[in-house]
């Protein structure tokens, strides 16, 4: 018997989370004191299927973390809606308190995300207590979770965050995220600050927990190797927009968007005989305050043409469950390399 368990409402075919037309702009002071907005997330839509890991990649400033924070409702979106297992988030059907129990997050900085004045078992038990478990039950559960993430409760339960190493603290954060038995865990650069040897331990732990607790992950990272290893599907963001989404292997082997291809070839090769000879992209991403017109990538794209400056490409299927927002994939888009209209719909059933 468990007070916190939430039933699966829509069955396995129903997406766990459906994000539609999400917009989040932050007001800033522009040049000469004019008002401006950072278009951190600009009209993105995607779904997270039950039991999958959705990887999110992109350069800094592309809106990955803003998306994660909106998913958690730590900040509220300007427009767009989140549907969690068929119920609208923050409505009478699914009030925030119920939603947050089912969605939890692990942050990059393992130290600043723990309360330094609480022992780690108190930190882990805090959520369940807020949600109505008795202190004794909550503490017992905290110890159980510590064992699950590989920290012996007898040795570690009474310690404070500063008495742990970075890898151990991140395990505590994972245990705390799991304390409410969530169905979706958002991992925002959760392993980025760890040393390589410790990172591998934590990645293995995340995979084990996913299997044993039937979790769904949104896994955000700038390390493409790690994202490929963890994810079933990958979403690529550029300047607040989704430029490509597809199954991990398809995306790595048949990337359709020039930005995805550039990201992939920016990964250092592990073969000294095949060093990278030319950098795939020059310069830094443009400012999200005043993004380029048309396709936002056209300023850095090797294939950009006049059409790219004018028309904004929308996501278009390029393979099975694989979509890209590039004029070169869209039939009759005006780009010289766009597929001819009559052949275009071949892959879509």
């Amino acid at each position, binding site marked *: 018997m468990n007070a916190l368990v939430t039933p699966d409402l829509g069955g396995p075919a129903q997406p766990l989370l459906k994000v539609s037309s999400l917009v989040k702009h932050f007001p800033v002071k522009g040049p000469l004191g004019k008002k401006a907005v950072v278009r951190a997330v600009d009209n993105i839509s995607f779904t997270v299927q039950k039991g999958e890991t959705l990887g999110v990649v992109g*350069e*800094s400033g592309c809106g990955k973390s803003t998306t994660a924070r909106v998913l958690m409702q730590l900040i509220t979106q300007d427009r767009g809606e989140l549907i969690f297992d068929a119920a609208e988030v923050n409505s009478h059907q699914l009030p925030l308190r119920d939603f947050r129990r089912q969605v939890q997050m692990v942050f990059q900085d393992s130290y600043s995300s723990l309360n330094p004045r609480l022992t780690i078992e108190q930190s882990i038990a805090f959520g369940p207590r807020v949600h109505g478990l008795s202190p004794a039950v909550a503490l017992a559960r905290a110890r159980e979770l510590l064992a699950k993430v590989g920290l012996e409760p007898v040795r570690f339960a009474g310690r404070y965050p500063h008495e742990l*190493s970075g*890898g*151990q603290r991140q395990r505590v954060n994972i245990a705390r995220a799991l304390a409410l038995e969530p169905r979706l865990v958002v991992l925002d650069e959760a392993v980025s600050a760890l*040393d*390589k*040897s*410790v*990172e*591998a*331990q934590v*990645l*293995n732990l995340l*995979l084990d927990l996913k299997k044993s607790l039937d979790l769904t992950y949104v896994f955000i990272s*700038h390390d*493409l*190797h*790690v994202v*490929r*290893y*963890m994810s079933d599907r990958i979403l690529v963001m550029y300047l607040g927009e989704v430029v490509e989404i597809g199954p*991990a292997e398809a995306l*790595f082997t048949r990337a359709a968007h020039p930005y995805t291809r*550039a*990201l992939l070839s*920016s*990964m*250092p*090769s*592990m*073969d*000294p*005989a095949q*060093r*990278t000879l*030319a*950098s*795939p*992209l*020059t*310069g*830094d991403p443009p400012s999200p305050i005043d993004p380029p017109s048309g396709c936002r990538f056209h300023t850095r794209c090797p294939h950009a043409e006049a059409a790219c400056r004018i028309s904004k490409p929308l996501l278009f299927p390029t393979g099975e469950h694989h979509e890209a927002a590039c004029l070169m994939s869209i039939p009759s888009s005006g780009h010289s390399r766009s597929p001819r209209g009559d052949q275009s719909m071949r892959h879509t059933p």
Partner: protein
Amino acid sequence: MNLHVPQPIVSVRDLSVHFHSASKIISAVNGVSLTVARGESVALIGESGSGKSVTLRSLMRLHPEKTTAIKGRIEIDGADVMTMSSSTLSAFRGSVTSMIFQEPLLAFDPVYTVGEQIIESVRRHCRLSRKDARAVALEALRSVRIPSPEQRLEAYPHEMSGGMRQRAMIALALACKPRLLLADEPTTALDATVQIQILLLLRELQREMGLSIIFVTHDIGAAVEIADRVAVMYGGRIVEEAPLATLLANPCHPYTVALLSSRPEGGLSKGSRLETIPGSPPDLSRLPEGCAFAARCKYASEACKKSFPGRVAVSPEHYVSCHRFPESA
């Protein structure tokens, strides 16, 4: 000088660096010996606390003298760094050896323009007039491929993007044409797309200027792009040292082997578990007597706990310190 055996640019012998704090002594570096040939680039690889950055900073004697005990020999470009007076040392920094850091925003002074800072350094080290120094600074910005360098001279550090700032810091470091560049994780804080640009830039500059580089990183991928030779550090010691291709093809030290296989590389199939190294890096205030890696090593024997293994050549130019490779063999 013997023309057939060129003198190395860097020669470090038995370097040890200990930091004294109120309650304990941190043994950050414990007997590092390293030689870098002219025009060579060497990567120091290791996890946090392995002593790689401390080794690098010791080469320019950047550690506070009051709380640091440095022992050993450091020779750079034929000069003994350990015995330098403070005025010789400041002439040596910047003109013979320069350093770039992980976070250029912290390395630059926020209240001066990038140009002013490069000009100041050039005037101090190359004894040039203001006008000539400005020309040198402009050339330096141009050499690191910063677009519209005249305008960038007038920019403050916060007005530049991360990649641009790192380029500006490289320009500052190389403005006086040093022979040795020390790079302390210069690409760690950058995006992958910008990281590769900076790595390529360093490689080009090295070729053009005949520069020697010591590149500290925890990312083997970055090392592969830039290094001729790699030294792997653990617990304040170099545990393995080899030319890059040799190290990747035939890693010998159990730590190097584990480090290389704990990376989730492309070929790894989904669902297969990553190789991990159990435990965590050693506490530098309580280092064990023997091999620092013994506690995490699956091959550890009694000998590993008692004594630190000597440096053994497993093939020409490939050295390892591990009891599995005994000195007599």
